[in-house]
């Protein structure tokens, strides 16, 4: 791994992407997530252009184009089967693991098209953290769970320190600091999910993808995870898929609404989506008339 992966990534094929240039990548514009006003000033981290996905002959996503801003929480909502998780899995090419899935279109991460032939999906996934629907810690110790990404990537550095730092960021350190060598499976569901978040942020990814991270948790654990996501957005770009519209309204800066058939119907600031959506279908969905 190189010293400054970010630069290499963007500089490699900056010609591919006309809108994001090196200067933009370097500048650190938005530090505050709390600002829920217009977020036009933020850098784009992920930019999708005409993404189409098929599972065998069935089209799961139709011409999705959107831009995900840096250091903000972007929520994807929509009814079951609308393709929001499929889109999330396009970002780190997890769809490659499904034989039946076929992806067309371009998806730029920091200006590099991840669907270019020279992109190694494994190397890509090392830049993108992922948290899944149900907590899935490895049957290893808490320490080894968090250090997993560091070990497989052969990263240099003080693992103890990184593990502690990651667990603190995931708001789990106080609960587990004295039992790091116990199995991750012995934790409660909410703790397991925070452990998975710590595991995802330990290798310091560019983007964190969360696929309904709280849907298997009780309300208390859910609210802990939500607080945590808001905090993470100070340092990371978070993309979260959720079934729960209130959750999207509470924690996200931007919201994308997918509706049945794999269409992206509307993508805008969260406030706008929930208070004054452009599309009648989105309004119907949000007010519960449909979906």
């Amino acid at each position, binding site marked *: 791994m190189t010293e400054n992966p970010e630069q290499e990534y963007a500089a490699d094929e900056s010609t591919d992407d006309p809108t994001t240039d090196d200067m933009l990548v370097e500048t650190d514009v938005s530090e505050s997530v709390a600002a829920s006003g217009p977020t036009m000033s933020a850098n784009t981290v992920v930019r999708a252009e005409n993404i189409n996905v098929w599972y065998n002959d069935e089209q799961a996503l139709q011409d999705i184009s959107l831009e995900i801003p840096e250091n903000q929480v972007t929520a994807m909502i929509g009814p079951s089967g609308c393709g929001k998780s499929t889109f999330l899995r396009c970002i780190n090419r997890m769809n490659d693991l499904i034989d039946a899935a076929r992806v067309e279109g371009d998806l730029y991460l920091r200006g590099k098209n991840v669907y270019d032939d020279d992109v190694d999906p494994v190397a890509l996934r*090392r830049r993108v*953290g992922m948290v899944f629907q149900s907590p*899935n810690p490895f049957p290893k110790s808490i320490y080894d769970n968090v250090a997993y990404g560091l070990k497989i990537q052969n990263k240099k550095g003080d693992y103890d320190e990184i593990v502690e730092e990651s667990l603190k960021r995931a708001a789990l350190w106080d609960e587990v600091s004295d039992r790091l060598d116990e199995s991750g499976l012995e934790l409660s569901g909410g703790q397991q999910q925070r452990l998975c978040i710590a595991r995802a942020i330990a290798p310091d990814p560019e983007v964190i993808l969360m696929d309904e991270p709280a849907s298997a948790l009780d309300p208390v654990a859910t609210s802990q995870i939500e607080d945590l996501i808001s905090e993470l957005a100070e340092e990371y770009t978070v993309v979260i898929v959720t079934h729960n519209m209130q959750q999207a309204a509470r924690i996200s800066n931007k919201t994308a609404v997918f509706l049945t058939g794999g269409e992206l119907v509307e993508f805008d600031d969260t406030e706008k989506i929930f208070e004054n959506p452009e599309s009648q279908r989105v309004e119907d969905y949000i007010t519960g008339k449909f979906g």
Partner: protein
Amino acid sequence: MATQQEQIEGFGHVSRTIGTVFRYVLLAATLFGIVALTILLIYVANDAIQPLTADPGWHLTFFLTLVVPTLLVGGYLLRTDPASFRFGATVVGLLAVSTMFAGGAAMIFVDIVPPVVWFGYVVALGLALGGVVGIERLDRRLPFLARFVGAGAVIVAALGIVPGAIQSLPVYPTDGIMLTLSLGAPVAVVVGRYAAAEAGRRWTALAMLVALAAVGAGEVLGPLLAIGAVPATVLLAVAVVPTAGYAVGHTRRFPARRSGLALTAAVLGGALVGAAAVDALGFAGPQSWVDWQFLTSAHSGTAAEAGLYPAIGGSILLMVTVAALSFPLGVGAAVYLEEYAPDNRFTRFIDVNISNLAGVPSVVYGLLGLGVFVTYLGQPTGTVLIGGATLALLILPIVIISAREALRSVPDSMRQASYGMGATRWQTIKNVVLPRAFPGILTGTILALGRAIGETAPLIMIGAPNVLFSLPTSLSSKVSAMPLQVYAWASLFASEPFYQAAVPAGVVVLLIVLLSMNSIAIVLRNKYQTDQ
């Protein structure tokens, strides 16, 4: 018109006659098999051990010293504190099973592998491992090929030179000391790590030292108890020290379960007191066929002097060979088929054929072994290697199927998590899938070995001798096995005393060995299930 006044007289009745009949037919079917098997086993055990030939006083003494206290203590614990009862019973079971394994290991060190050879190889292996780790640590910038070649050279050099050098030393330590170092040290490390996990890190060193010292005591205790230094050391290293380590570690972690040791004390103490009492009172025990003489002597023309010793040793060696051959091959094939192979017509064809091969009669495998190894490759008939290879082929499909089952039981979410972290397929398999599936794989392999240990037909086919008078000393010596010896007694030497006593005694020993092997599988499976 549903008013609140409307009332229901009754709900009627639904017939369950057929269901009830079905249920009891199933119960009868279940019981039929179990009862038939139990009766058979009681007959065989009765013939082998002949408990009724003992003095009634003998029975009464053991009833009073062993059975009554065990029932009282066990019953009391079971009612008041089941966790302690389980702990106490586990300690007894562990001691019993590990004593069997110690017997097998002692047999190997007394008659097959001299302790000095074993010591030489353990030292060589230790040096080789140290060298490889040293090369890895020395400089991670060395290219992979250089590290690979270096590590290979160290391993070859250590294994090639050290054992010979140690054997050629003019003076070397006594067998007991060498075994203490080469067998006791790994046991001490395991006990120490266990103590660290159960009782805390600071106990590690102490636990290791105590364990090593305890194994070393075999050098002194062995001659005192008139069983020799080597068997005593092996017994301590394989049975006593691990069991004691488990008991101590567990009581430190769960002090409340300490009362479970009362059950252990009742069983062990009762047996000792009973043995001393019948000795003092002069009560004769049963004229059991399964006795020291039977276990330690070879076949003889007279049934009373016949024994199973070469066959037991042969079976142990065969099992080691079979495990060494079938485990890597079977697990390797399972990992490939489950994790790498694409789902196409060819792999489905292989799938179906593996399932079919698992059902092929064992005599066919014997024919295969004879044809391939003896006729085609020109190997001598009936050797440990040929027998082991044939039995390994026999259980290979079972190992593959059970290993695939274990791999399939690893939740896909674990693989997804690993891929999501940017792990390659190899890293995912090595770090996540295999560790998780390992207990299941091991369980399946052990149960498959259980099938191999009872096979007679393939061994007859490849020309294993029915009767052997000494243990095989190398992979190319002729081998006999327990089922083969029993079969020989039942057919070639068929006479009243042989098939009335020697055969049942052989069967009982075979079953005991089989059960102790399967008990590992059961323990692993239980641990596996509680982990999930």
